[in-house]
């Protein structure tokens, strides 16, 4: 197998909260091939953004290894890390706060070139113009300031800036969730086009499962700091193996009123437990509709699944012993709500 673009092994992030340890990302492992998109999906408090930031070492992981191609990101010192920045970039959720309001678009886009590449000014201007056009903006906009643009246009600018040095990897943290629906799809289509043209790999951090499914062939689902299920998107969405994944999919309101009246959904009880004091055993057990005794006692085993990916859930080895089968049949047999 060729070296993946990004390889993360047992990444742990621990925050110090008033003397207490908050394990925000626990043993996160994932891989992204060159030019591929991996979706990292979860709700608030799942640790998905923390994981994204720690991969770029924008926050320091407590332990674990991150490799970008052949380079060990976690072992790099400050100078090495700075040099590595041009290979891995980030696009944030809020295009209103991620662009310096006092810089023109040209300054914003040429800054990475000034810092990382020794390129004369006329050539920099050229590249800025070309990049603006490739994200669907006029090259002539380069003298303008961020406030002159709409949210969608600003996100295009943020993407352009991240692309200026042709990075191998971009971490996209909720890149469309602050945008109106009509502009969301513009940005999603733009990101896919840019990836096709450039071969840049994306780690797409998002809470919206449909966005993730549209954008990524593979997905990892996080809950309370841990990855609970991974796999090819189509498999994960159509035949989830972890109850949390099933609940998350069923909670997304589908724009068809008849479907809502005719189908039931899984409504999760309770609230996200405090990450300062996570439940013993399986972290999802306090909200799981299928909880068993074993779930409080032991951390769930990681079941490798046919067709790729894995799920961490006792249902596959205890109780109904699903052995890696889809949850949907089991749920129907229990007369529990299905996810369609």
């Amino acid at each position: 197998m060729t070296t993946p673009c990004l390889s993360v092994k047992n990444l742990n992030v621990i925050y110090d909260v008033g003397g207490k340890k908050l394990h925000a990302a626990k043993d996160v492992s994932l891989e992204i091939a060159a030019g591929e998109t991996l979706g990292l999906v979860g709700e608030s408090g799942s640790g998905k953004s923390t994981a994204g930031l720690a991969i770029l070492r924008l926050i320091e992981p407590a332990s674990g290894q991150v490799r970008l191609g052949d380079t060990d990101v976690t072992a790099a010192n400050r100078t090495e890390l700075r040099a590595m920045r041009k290979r891995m970039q980030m696009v944030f959720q809020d295009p209103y706060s991620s662009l310096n309001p006092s810089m023109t678009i040209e300054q914003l886009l040429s800054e990475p070139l000034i810092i990382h590449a020794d390129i004369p000014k006329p050539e920099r201007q050229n590249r800025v113009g070309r990049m603006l056009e490739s994200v669907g903006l006029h090259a002539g906009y380069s003298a303008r300031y961020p406030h002159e643009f709409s949210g969608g246009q600003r996100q295009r600018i943020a993407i352009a800036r991240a692309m200026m040095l042709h990075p191998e990897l971009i971490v996209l943290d909720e890149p469309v969730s602050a945008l109106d629906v009509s502009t969301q799809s513009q940005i999603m289509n733009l990101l896919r086009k840019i990836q096709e043209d450039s071969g840049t790999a994306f780690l797409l951090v998002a809470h919206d499962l449909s966005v993730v499914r549209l954008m990524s062939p593979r997905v990892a689902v996080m809950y309370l700091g841990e990855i609970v299920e991974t796999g090819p998107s189509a498999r994960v969405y159509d035949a989830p193996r972890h109850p949390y994944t099933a609940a998350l999919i069923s909670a997304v309101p589908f724009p068809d009123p008849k479907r809502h009246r005719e189908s039931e959904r899984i409504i999760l009880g309770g609230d996200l437990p405090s990450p300062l004091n996570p439940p013993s055993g399986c972290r999802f057990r306090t909200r799981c509709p299928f909880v068993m005794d074993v779930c409080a006692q032991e951390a769930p085993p990681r079941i490798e699944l046919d067709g790729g990916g894995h799920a961490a859930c006792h249902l596959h080895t205890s109780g109904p012993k699903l052995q890696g089968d889809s949850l949907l049949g089991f749920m129907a047999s229990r007369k529990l709500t299905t996810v369609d």
Partner: protein
Amino acid sequence: MAVGQESLLEIRDLTVQYPSAHGWLTVVDNVSVSVGRNDIVCIVGESGSGKSVTTQAAVGLVQSKGGRIKSGSVKFDGQELVGMGNKQLNRIRGNDIGFIFQEPMSSLNPAYTVGEQIAEVVRRHRGASRADAWKRAVEMLDRVHIASAASRAHDYPHQFSGGMRQRVMIAMSIACDPKLLIADEPTTALDVTIQARILELLKEVQKDSGMSVLFITHDLGVVAEIARSVVVMYGAQVVEAAPVDELFASPRHPYTAGLLGAMPQVALAKGVDPISIPGTVAQAHAWPSGCRFNPRCTYRQDGPCTTNPVPLAADDHGLVRCALSASLRSTLSEMVVA
């Protein structure tokens, strides 16, 4: 849209303006919305469509922010609200009309327990004694499924999660048995699993109490789940209004169809790329001439779409503001889920 004498809330030809560097801007333009009794109506639109201002203006909440109602009428339960004094309006707001907003934390006072805040509403509007009001507060918290309501009533807002705070807000807004609940993006800030529970709760409370709900959202998925009828707004105007099934089965305005086609879920179900609506949302100081959606519309025809304002016209579903509506029918239907 349930039009008729039975309506609980009847917004008629409402026009609202705000001052700006460009003079008075019309942010709500001749909008009519009707909410029947025991009804759930959704106003759907993107940022800047005027959906929130319409409802704020209807209950007299724009004047304090510098806005003005240029024209129009708002009848609630037979009473005209436009021009009514604040004292009288205050008696109606919070009592006959309850509110919940997007961000529950900013609607709750951090210095008081949630029990005190709900009891305060009951005392103020119902003149209940302290003891009775507290009893009602606990009853309401229990009503919105907050476990151990009697003890949680003594907790402060920060001791609740986002979803629980929104439950507290619902408890407060229904404590006086309102006839109408105005819910402005109440689930937008919440995670989807929490949103699902809040929507279930709202439907349950509505069904049990028979109150009407005017629900404002940008999410057509939420609309499909909760609404009986829908009003779609774009550029300060109503562009389409129809019962929920008709709207989703066969949208009549290119904007509605585009919004549906832009939803990732719809694109996935159809196995196609999501539709992009080109350009950006129209701004109040620069409405295009003719149809306000015309610069972004795939089907635009010079002349009918670009010269004169397009009127809101009745068709067999409801109302639609599109010069090409008749000829686009089948094209637009094909854009929604088969």
